[in-house]
């Protein structure tokens, strides 16, 4: 890569911020640390980073407020949330508010770097496609053909119900991004879908998994984000 990608790290814990920045530098990113929300926002405007790592538990302002201000901007910059393990609802809110992904403390370096790579790639692809949807999505040997409304696994066609296909289609279009239960329910079952029980989605997903011979302990296509939602592996 000709130019280093810039990543803004908004994290008040010095020790965590330090090792994240070191890990980023070691992986050839340019890391800019910010110890608080206000500093983070001002550094965001002065440096124009390619991605933001945002801790939700900041001392000077609510991490979700920082996220709101970032997502109100015309320039779309992907945001990865850093959050504590026991605050699921906060994560879900952040994802619904436009965050692209999240990592849970304590997290490993390789996991963090993998998520950053995925998110950056996804954002690049979005910019290039200018929002034009593709007709065919591929994940390993799985082909989701939206135009023809069919799914092939290693050239064998697999039959899905209407809703199962809609779920797969939605996950494929947003491949690499975590989709919350409510987001999927709303897009598959209509605007009042999030009022219906989670169960309908979970059962559909269990059936999809069985049809794809997908074991959740060795996911090939679909990752489970426990208590939050699902994510399809990107191309």
């Amino acid at each position, binding site marked *: 890569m000709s130019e280093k990608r810039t990543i803004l790290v908004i994290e008040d*814990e010095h*020790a*965590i911020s*330090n*090792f*994240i920045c*070191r*890990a980023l530098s*070691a992986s050839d990113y340019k890391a800019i640390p910010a110890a608080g929300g206000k500093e983070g926002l001002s550094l965001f405007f002065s440096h124009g980073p390619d991605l933001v790592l945002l801790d939700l538990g900041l001392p000077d302002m609510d991490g979700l407020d920082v996220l709101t201000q970032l997502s109100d901007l015309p320039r779309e910059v992907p945001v990865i949330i850093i959050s*504590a*393990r*026991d605050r699921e609802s906060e994560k879900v809110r952040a994802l619904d508010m436009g965050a692209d992904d999240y990592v849970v*403390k*304590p*997290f*490993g*370096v*390789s*996991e963090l770097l993998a998520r950053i790579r995925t998110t950056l790639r996804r954002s690049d692809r979005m910019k290039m496609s200018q929002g034009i949807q593709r007709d065919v999505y591929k994940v390993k040997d799985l082909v989701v053909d939206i135009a023809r409304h069919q799914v092939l696994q290693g050239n064998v066609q697999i039959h899905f119900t209407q809703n199962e296909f809609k779920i797969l289609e939605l996950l494929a279009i947003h491949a690499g991004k975590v989709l919350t239960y409510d987001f999927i329910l709303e897009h598959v079952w209509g605007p009042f879908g999030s009022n*219906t*029980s*989670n*169960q*309908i989605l*979970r*059962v*559909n*997903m*269990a*059936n999809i*998994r069985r049809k794809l011979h997908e*074991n*959740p*302990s*060795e*996911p090939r296509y679909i990752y*489970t984000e*426990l*208590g939050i939602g699902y994510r399809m592996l990107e191309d």
Partner: protein
Amino acid sequence: MELKEQLQRSWRVLAKWFLRIPPVPRGLTATVFFLGCAYLISHFLIGHTGGENNSALVFVLAVVFISLLTEGYIFGLVASVFGAVITNYSFMAPYDEFSLSQKGYPVTMLSMLAISLVVCALTSRVRQQAQDAEARERNTKLLFEQNQKLNEEKAAIQLQSAQETIRSNILRAVSHDLRTPLTAIAGTASVLLSTPEVSPRNVAMLQDIKSDADALINMVENLLSVTRIEDGVVPLKKREEMLEEVAGDAVLTLKRRFPLGNVQLELSEDLLYLPMDSMLIKQVMVNLLENAVRHSGDTEHIVMKLYRRDDWAVVEVRDHGTGLSDEVLEAIRDGRPLRVGNSADSTRGMGIGLSVCQSIIKAHGGFFEAENAPDGGAVFRFGLHMEEVPMEA
């Protein structure tokens, strides 16, 4: 002085006892008794003092007592009339005959009746006021006691909630203050591991640092979970989950920490969708898997199996290692906590992990058991109750 006090006290006791009788019999008794007394005294006086007698005064006194000890005006009124009539009849000449013919008798009769009535009215009012005052006093006392009790209860509740706040604050602080540096240690070690200029000897040391930090992180999670559950400070966050998703996540977590461990997840044909605190159940699975990887002596053939047995969703973790000692089996069967670090070094840390599993499953109302498989290796099994939720899909 002492005599007066004694008299007062015995009067109070007597009056109290007397006042407990229902009003009508009490009134009748008092009326008859005091009129009788007045009659006897007058009779006695007339024997000693002759014609000039004070029987009218004696009867007025009787009316005072009757008014004091009876409810309302009726008895005093009746006693007044009786008193006047008896005085006239028995203690004024001509004796044993009712007569108003003598000069001045009607006036005496009427004035005696009038005095009796006034005394009766006054006494009744005094009595009423005394009763009111007493009632007020009783109410005030009752109010005061209730207030005091309420205050005590309030103080107790405040103390309890303060203790709970302190405890959950400490929990949060501990979790934050331990996790943060441990995350940083493990993270920094892995950053160093990925830099090319580290010598092979240092690589091994860094790997040790990383895996120990990871183990400590897991230990902190375990301790926090068990404190959380056993204090009952934080209730279980139960929500319906697909068991296979929780299990898949647990296996992935384990593989991240022990890349060499080979774990198979066998799914159930049934959809096991049931309420649970998924973070805690995942921790039980991670603990059992870690236990198998670290202590069984066989990291190659670890199987986690999900199935349905009657109304239970069952999770079974099986290894093909050395199996469990009788001591461990017995402790688990009795639901006793395992003694930590009892025998060989290989069981280090096993006790805490299994105790946490037992507590979490107990809090879920499930069962937890362990046995040695006939063909070798240990089997841990736990079950959660399936609550029938109608399938909509």
